[in-house]
């Protein structure tokens, strides 16, 4: 299979089906087995204590783990029935459809415009007006356009922390992915910038599947439709967020979210 194996399907639902997924660091099992269906165009939050495997799981959804030496993945992840770990599937193509935003905003030391256009240019897009249109669209989707439209060619490093994080979201959205993975996207932001990001996540869920790792229980409760609780490499419970936060079925989930851990 080539890159085309993961070209966008005609009507993407953005469902991510994970089946019997294991991740190993060397001989050590870090995660698994995990089997779950992450529903398309909704927000799924991954919660759990440090080292529980949630970030490992997140990274295995777009093959970012492959960049870690000694890391080995077993099992299946299908995006709209296309196996992302299928033979011959290009990891770069996977990451184009399943974008990622990190805890610490990491804009390139370039202009705002060039940051957003980066992935598009790598993808071979050179037409200026098309490029401009897509950059504008991505910045509007990340709710940054009004704040930066008059200074698109200034350095991205001059933006505030919250703006830089939304810029990174715009950069991920510019290549028109189906899924957006977010690893603690608001943990370094003040409450107002956090509120902007959370509002944005709500908006994005109309068009994208969002999977977010967060240590903030209230944030998980606020932004997500479904919540998955991980503990020591196992998926302990996965249910509607309202169920997890009002009457979880597993006592380990209950202990963790109410703050009775360890």
């Amino acid at each position, binding site marked *: 299979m080539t890159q085309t194996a993961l070209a966008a399907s005609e009507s993407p639902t953005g469902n991510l089906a994970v089946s019997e997924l294991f991740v190993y660091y060397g001989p050590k099992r870090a995660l698994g087995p995990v089997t779950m269906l992450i529903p398309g165009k909704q927000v799924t939050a991954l919660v759990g204590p440090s080292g529980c495997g949630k970030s490992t799981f997140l990274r295995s959804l777009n093959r970012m783990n492959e960049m870690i030496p000694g890391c080995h993945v077993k099992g299946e992840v299908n995006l709209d029935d296309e196996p992302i770990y299928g033979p011959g599937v290009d990891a770069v193509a996977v990451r184009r459809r399943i974008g990622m935003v990190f805890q610490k905003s990491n804009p390139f030391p370039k202009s705002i415009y060039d940051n957003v256009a980066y992935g598009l240019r790598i993808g071979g897009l050179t037409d200026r007006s098309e490029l401009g249109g897509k950059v504008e669209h991505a910045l509007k989707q990340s709710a940054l356009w009004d704040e930066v439209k008059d200074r698109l060619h200034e350095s991205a490093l001059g933006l505030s922390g919250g703006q830089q994080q939304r810029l990174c979201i715009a950069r991920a959205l510019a290549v028109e992915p189906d899924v957006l993975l977010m690893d603690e996207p608001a943990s370094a932001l003040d409450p107002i910038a956090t509120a902007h990001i959370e509002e944005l996540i709500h908006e994005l869920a109309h068009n994208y599947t969002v999977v977010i790792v967060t240590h903030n229980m209230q944030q998980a409760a606020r932004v997500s439709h479904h919540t998955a609780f991980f503990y020591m490499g196992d998926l302990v419970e996965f249910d509607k967020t309202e169920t997890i936060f009002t009457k979880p079925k597993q006592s380990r989930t209950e202990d963790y979210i109410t703050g*009775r851990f360890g």
Partner: protein
Amino acid sequence: MAGREHTDREYEQELRQLREQLLVMGSHVESIIGDSIRSLLERDVKLAERTIQADKTVNRMEVELDGLCLQILARRQPVASDLRFITLVLKVVTDLERIADLGVNICERVLELDAEPQLKPYVDIPHMGQEVQSMLREVLDAFVAKDANRARKIIERDEVVDALYAQVFRELLTFMMESGHNVYRATRLQSIAKYLERMADHTTNLAEMVIFMVDGEDVRHLTSRAETDELIRRDHN
């Protein structure tokens, strides 16, 4: 409440304080029920007056417990069983306070009856009082033991109190039909029986809340909810 303690000890302490204060309030209310009935049986005006005063403690505790709940909601953002517990307390205090008010109402009728000779020997009313008091004690125990099954059994006992009330009502009606002179006293006694019947309803509410706290299952108005669901379904078809 989950079995384990909170990592944050101060939070754990706040929850414990809430639990203990709620039980203290419950035991005050239980005494008010017992004392109000005793003041009727023993025609003890002083006890009736003391009981009316005791209600003020219950009122104060309602306000304090509400305040504590709001503080925990604002500062701790409780979830899961903690959240169910806090919302339970917010509602329980209202029912408890009303039960105490009904006890005060009984005492007020006792004061009115004091000027009159006793209409009849009291049989079913003290029986109702004992039943209600025992239901309340049981619901508080079920709460402490986090025992939803015990709470379910209390709900069934509401029918016993309802049946006793119907019986008292019929009996008092015959007294009233017998002579107009009986009406003043019979209506007072009928009110007292009604207050006790209402207390049992409030206690049933408490039992439903305990079930919700323990199991997360909302058992309120199951029959009428099923009926309205049926009506909605019919409307759609």
